[in-house]
Structure formats: C-alpha cells, structure tokens
C-alpha cells in the first residue's frame, strides 16, 4: 500500500504513525496550522484516498471533511465508536468505514469496574489526601466511604463491553446484573426503572442517536443520593448539566466518568468535587490494546489497498 495516500487527522499513537509513514504515503493534518487546514486539504485532496481518525466526540470524519476529499475511499477509525463519522455521507459516496471492536473490550470493562470501585471507595481522592500530607496532619483521620461489593449494578447496553462488565462485577458478589436493551425511540422509561432498582448504573451502550441523553434527570433522580453513575460510553449519553448539578447538590452520590460531552472539556464544577473520579477517555488505554488497535487499523488499510475483504467494516 505504498502508494496509498493516508490522512491522519491528529496524533494518535507513535507506533501507528511510524507504521503509516513507513508503509503508506502519510499526510498529517496537524502539519498545517488550524486556520490553514482548508488550504492544506485542497492542496492534497487528489492524493488522499484514506483517512485515519481516533475516537470520541469531535474526532473527525464529518460531512465537511468527506466532501473536501473527492478521492476518499475509506475512513479507518482507531476506536470502536464511530459516531464521529457521517455514515450517511459515506454510504452516499461509497466510502467504506472500519473500527476496532473486540480488541479493546476487556480494557474498557476493566476501567469501568475500576471506576465503579473508585467512585464509592474514593481511592483517587484518598491518594490525593495522602500526597497532600493530610493523613499525617489530621492524625490519621480519613472518614468512611461506601461499599462496592454486593451492590446492585445496572448496565445500560449489554453488548460486548456491557457483558464483559457484567461478568466482572459478578465476581464481587453483585446480584445478577440487569440489562436494559433499549428500543428504537428517544424516550425510554425502562431505564428509569433500571435506575430505581440499582445502586449503581454503568453506561456501556454504543453511541447511537437513540441513546443520546439516555441518562436523564429522571434517571439520575431514580438513582438517588446514594447512587453512583459510571460512564464509559459517550458523554452524550448523559444529560451532563443535570449530572453536574446533581453531584454538586448531593442528589447523586458519586460518579466515575471516562467520557464527557465535549472531550477534554471537563466542567470546572466537577473538578471541585470529591465524589467524582475523572478520567481522560482512556478506556482502551493500555500499551497492549493500543498496539492491537493500531495493527487492526493497518490490517484494514492493507486489505482495502489489496481489494480484499475488510476485517472490521462498519459500512
């Protein structure tokens, strides 16, 4: 695939970038300053046949980009979520799309469990307390946290990741976890019922339009002042302003968040709270898994270049 012109939208992974550079004709969008990117795309439009994106909201692959690249054949996502890609436009243009499912399932599930323990048990907060010298200064005092084992865990979305989470929390004596598959419309009363019978909710559903705002004010209220919310799906699954207010006012007990409405933009109010664990969208963030994801991206590109079946097509 040495002649395949590939556009990388932002730095993702050193190994991936090196391999793309070695094996393809790599162009890096960030070589151009922000205000000259349109020019950059126009200058290279005829040679770009593939785009590699990361994941999360704002990762690129929207209609504007697709329209700017008349020779575009494939968008390869270094992520399992592909909500940032305009699939309708891709289908219209005959542009293929791939993602990286399965290789990151365990890592995301592990982080979800880590956040589910850390939110009630406050491990990161306790670590900050020790580092600030407060354990010694307060003569050994810390205070009580809340138990995790045996609590009722409700999982929203029982796909690959949700099932992996369910398997893990059962090891902690959490009663048979309940799943709620959501039907194809926006208002979902049954998620409220799930929240009402759960001590903690884990959002693990894939980013579809129907699941936008699935964790609403009503759901948060049903979860209650001792409830915990963990989100390893998408920030858009949760009514973020409502979540922030509920946490600040004590209407929700705690949260473990790996994703936010606007990636890397964590509300200041959350930064001031001790009952929240904040992670920088690192569900798949292990060396082993990122390499596996990179290899899958490269394998999909190679298959495309050789006109072979794609390994993990979305479109």
């Amino acid at each position, binding site marked *: 695939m040495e002649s395949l012109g590939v556009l990388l939208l932002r730095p993702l992974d050193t190994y991936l970038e090196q391999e793309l550079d070695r094996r393809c004709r790599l162009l890096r969008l960030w070589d151009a300053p922000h205000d000259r990117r349109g020019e950059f795309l126009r200058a290279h439009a005829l040679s770009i046949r593939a785009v590699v994106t990361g994941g999360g909201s704002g990762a690129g692959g929207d209609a504007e980009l697709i329209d700017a690249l008349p020779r575009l054949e494939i968008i390869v996502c270094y992520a399992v979520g592909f909500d940032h890609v305009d699939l309708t436009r891709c289908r219209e243009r005959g542009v293929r799309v791939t993602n990286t499912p399965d290789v990151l399932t365990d890592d995301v599930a592990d982080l979800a469990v880590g956040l589910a323990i850390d939110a009630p048990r406050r491990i*990161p907060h306790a670590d900050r307390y020790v580092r600030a010298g407060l354990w010694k200064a307060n003569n050994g005092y810390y205070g009580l*946290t809340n138990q995790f084992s045996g609590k009722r865990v409700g999982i929203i979305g029982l796909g690959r990741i949700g099932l992996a989470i369910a398997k893990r929390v059962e*090891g902690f004596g959490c009663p048979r976890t309940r799943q709620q598959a959501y039907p194809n419309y926006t208002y979902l009363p049954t998620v409220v019922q799930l929240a009402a019978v759960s001590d903690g909710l884990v959002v693990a559903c894939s980013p579809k339009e129907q699941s936008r705002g699935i964790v609403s004010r009503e759901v948060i209220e049903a979860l209650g002042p001792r409830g915990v919310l963990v989100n390893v799906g998408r920030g858009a699954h949760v009514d973020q302003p409502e979540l922030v207010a509920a946490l600040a006012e004590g209407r929700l007990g705690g949260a473990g968040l790996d994703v936010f409405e606007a990636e890397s933009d964590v509300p200041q109010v959350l930064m001031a709270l001790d009952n929240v664990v904040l992670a920088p969208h690192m569900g798949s963030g292990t060396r082993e898994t990122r390499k596996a994801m990179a290899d899958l991206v490269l394998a999909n590109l190679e298959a495309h270049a050789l006109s072979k079946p794609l390994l993990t097509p979305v479109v």
Partner: protein
Amino acid sequence: MCLAAGVDFIDLDECARRGVVVANSGSVFSADVADHAVGLLIDVLRRVSAAERFVRRGLWPVQGGHPLGSKIGGRRVGIIGLGNIGSQIAKRLQALGCIVCYNSRTPKDSVPYRYFTNVHDLAVESDVLVVACALNKATRHIVGKDVLEALGKDGVVVNIGRGANVDQAELVRALKEGRIAGAGLDVFENEPGAPGELFCMDNVVMTPHVAVFTAESMSDLRDHVVANLEAFFSGQPLLTPVLPHSPVN
C-alpha cells in the same frame, strides 16, 4: 474484643496465660478489603489516580493523551496469604481474567490456584504480588529485597496487610531506581503518613489505611462486636475467637 482482623498488637500468649479470651472481627470486613485491594491493583496498572491528577490539573486539553497503562487480563497475581481476604481477592481477580497463585502457611485443598511454598518462588512467577497475610514474626518483611528482585522491573506490589509485611525502605529504593514497576499501598510502616519520596511518583497509589472503613462494614462490625460480647457473657463460644498461633487473617 479486637475491632480488627489483625491482632498483631495483642500479646496472645500473655492473654492465654491469664485466661483472657480474644475475639477479632472475623470476616466482617473481608469483602471491603478485597475490593480495596483490587481497586488499588486496577488503579496502579491502569494509572487511574495519575490520570485523575492529569485531568484535575487541566492538562487534558493541553497535552492530549495521558501515558498508557498495562492490560490486566492474563496478569499472574501472587497472593501472599489465602485466608478470608485473600480468597475474596482471588475470586475477584479471576473475574478480571487474572491468573491467581498463592503462598500461605499451608496449601488449601479446595482451591484451584497454584501453591508456592515460599514467597520468593511466588514472586518469580508473578507480575503482581498482593500482600494479604497477618503480621507476625514469620511475615515481618516477608516482601524484602530478594522478593522484590524476584518480582522484577515490571512487577507491582499491592499491600493491604500491614506496613511491616513489606520492607518499606527497600520498596521505596526499588521504586526510585525503577527495579519494580509500581505499588498500591494502603498500609505503611509508620502510620499515619507515607514516605515522602513516593509523593511524586505516578506509578504508586497510596491510601490512608482505609480498606475496612466503609459505612456498611462499620455497621456490620457493631453487630459483630455485640454478638461476640453477648456470646461471652452468656457462656457461649465466641463467634470469632483468636488463639495463640492460630491462622488469623
């Protein structure tokens, strides 16, 4: 009546000589301690606390990605002490896809995990060592220089036992020199307080001896203490007696 599982600070022989019976907290806290141990392990391997500091310092929008952690599934975890707490840790780690092995005073017949007769050999075959044993003469500094060397530069230590189960000075040196990869510590040799050299390390997670302190465990403990006292004063056997040389965990 000891409000803890550990009774290392009680002279059990002297109590026996004077006819003083001792009871401990039994397995009241075991689930919470096991959760804490697993929480520390996930935190160290996945760098959760370090990533949180990264976010709270406002570095995410500026620096983009955070350093990567290590996969948990497939890790070999050696548990030192397979009592109530150790067994519960093992069960949770299996659910996370870890391969569990252990060292204990004696092998346990009914468990599916590989047994090692000494901690050094356990460390050779482990990626993570979890200290879950009682503190007594035999287990003081049971994780020392040779065990840390056997664990190796990619190894992680998690301690929810007692600070003195680990040679703390040696552990700090090993961390400073990169001879082990990280540590999750709920206990220390001179509490309260942890060694200041660890405060700048992102591969270490420290908590202030809190593994048992949940509202639920404290409530269960109250009930347990009352039950033991009622048993004693009505001439019934204690629920959780501790004898000298008994395998307390």
